[in-house]
């Protein structure tokens, strides 16, 4: 039936166009930027995409960009894992126990509004400039959204699952492991993804102030030396890495929760 073929061909075309739209908007942004840079004609204030590409190549060739990226990523992963180690048991316990909720709930709500950047000076005082204070800031930035997310995940486990499991003779540790954890898992993984994003954001804040390597340090140091193109390379790298991390976590999430 030609009519149906036409319609389905139209649908395929529409879908392809939809998939290409994000790419098109990024390209449009690069073009607009390029035009703006040409009009402004001041690479100190706004270097064009070509100039940034060149300095990115330069930084890649002397290895410093890769060093900065790996330094930043290592800190993010370390801090995030450390935060996870505390947030999952604590959030889980708060979600399942009224007394744990009452002991830690208010405390967490009181500390949570203090942004990671406000913790940087005290972190420097306590841990000095370097690895320990950066780890602290990353961990701090990732911890609160994760503990709250995990707490919500465990608190909102549908009672129906527990009732079904109990009527099938499942209780105690087995009930927790086989039912509660599994039912909470989707929200726990979302909390982990959000935590990873915030760990990365906090890290850059920490590196801007107190670091010699890392993407934040690249930005801060280029500002001092007026190398705006290097500064933008650092910023774009942060954007791209954050994007990739989030994409990766979504893939992991989809794989682990493939039963949905």
């Amino acid at each position, binding site marked *: 039936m030609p009519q149906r073929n036409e319609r389905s061909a139209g649908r395929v075309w529409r879908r392809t166009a939809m998939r290409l739209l994000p790419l098109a908007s990024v390209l449009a942004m690069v073009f607009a930027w390029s035009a703006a840079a040409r009009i402004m004609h001041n690479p100190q204030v706004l270097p064009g995409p070509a100039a940034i590409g060149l300095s990115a190549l330069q930084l890649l060739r002397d290895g410093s960009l890769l060093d900065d990226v790996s330094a930043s990523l290592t800190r993010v992963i370390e801090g995030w894992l450390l935060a996870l180690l505390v947030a999952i048991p604590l959030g889980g316990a708060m979600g399942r126990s009224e007394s744990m909720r009452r002991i830690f709930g208010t405390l967490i709500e009181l500390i949570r509004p203090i942004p990671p950047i406000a913790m940087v000076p005290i972190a420097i005082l306590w841990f000095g400039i370097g690895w320990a204070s950066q780890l602290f800031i990353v961990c701090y930035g990732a911890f609160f959204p994760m503990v709250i997310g995990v707490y919500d995940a465990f608190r909102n486990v549908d009672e*129906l*699952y527990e*009732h*079904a*499991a*109990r*009527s*099938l*003779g*499942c209780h105690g540790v087995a009930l927790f492991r*086989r*039912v509660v954890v*599994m*039912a909470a*898992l989707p929200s726990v993984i979302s909390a982990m993804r959000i935590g990873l994003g915030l760990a990365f954001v906090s890290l850059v804040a920490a590196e801007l102030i107190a670091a010699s390597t890392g993407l934040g340090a690249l930005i801060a140091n280029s500002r001092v030396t007026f190398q705006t193109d290097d500064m933008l390379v650092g910023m774009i790298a942060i954007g791209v890495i954050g994007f990739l991390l989030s994409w990766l976590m979504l893939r992991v999430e989809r794989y682990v929760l493939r*039963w*949905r």
Partner: protein
Amino acid sequence: MLRHRERKSATTGAFVEVTASSDTAKHPSGARNARGPAPAAHAHAADEPLVAVDDISIWYGDPRGEPVLGHVSLIAREGEFICLVGPSGCGKSTLLKAIAGFTPVGHGSIRVRGAEVRGPGSDRGMVFQEFALFPWLTVQENVLFGDKASAGSAQQRYDRASHYLDLVGLTRFRDHHPSQLSGGMRQRVALARAWANQPTVLLMDEPFGALDARTRQELQETLLRIFEEERTLCFFVTHDTSEAAYLADRIFIMHAHGARREELRIDVPRPRDRHSDAVQEQVRNLDRLAWEAQ
């Protein structure tokens, strides 16, 4: 029998149904059909009922106020299919949840095989209106979830799953996840899961309430097919009188605020034709008993 005061028949030990307003609702004492509950066939059943609800009252919140359920007693024996029918708010689901052990009883006691109910347990299987399958497990893993269902060797487990999936007609879907199944199929899995764990009594809380009319009829037939095979005592909560008349051996009719409770015995032999005069007459009786008092 659901009533403030019960009478026991000396000869059978079974409860005598209340006097309904019509003679047709009465059970002619000699007309018990062969497949109906026959306490004599189970030696222990005559003295020891499978489920005995003894004068229970349940309050939500303030125990000085009006109870959700007041002074309910009933006795159920092996092989019976019992429906609890009534309008919403009559406490039929509360009664079921009390037997399941989810709702604590304020006064009185519930015994299953002589042991007092103190919480949920695998001797009382549940089927929920919302299916309550574990979405992270496959169909077969759901069916084998229970403590008794999961016992034995891999081969025994596989055979057990096959048997119950075959009863509900879902053998081909054993490796699917619940999200890949329709509502009717999910409830079939839930039936298989409950039955595979060999409960003493199966409690079903409006299990087909969320399904469309056609699927509901198919599931009623599946349910009766398994019941005929396994003869597990069933409690089935519904507000659909034609569903109750089609399924049940005995029907407990509950009214709002627990003011009056009645019992109707359905002696139509199975397999039943839901459109037959015999079933339709019982639907009319039931409608009259259930809604007239409103």
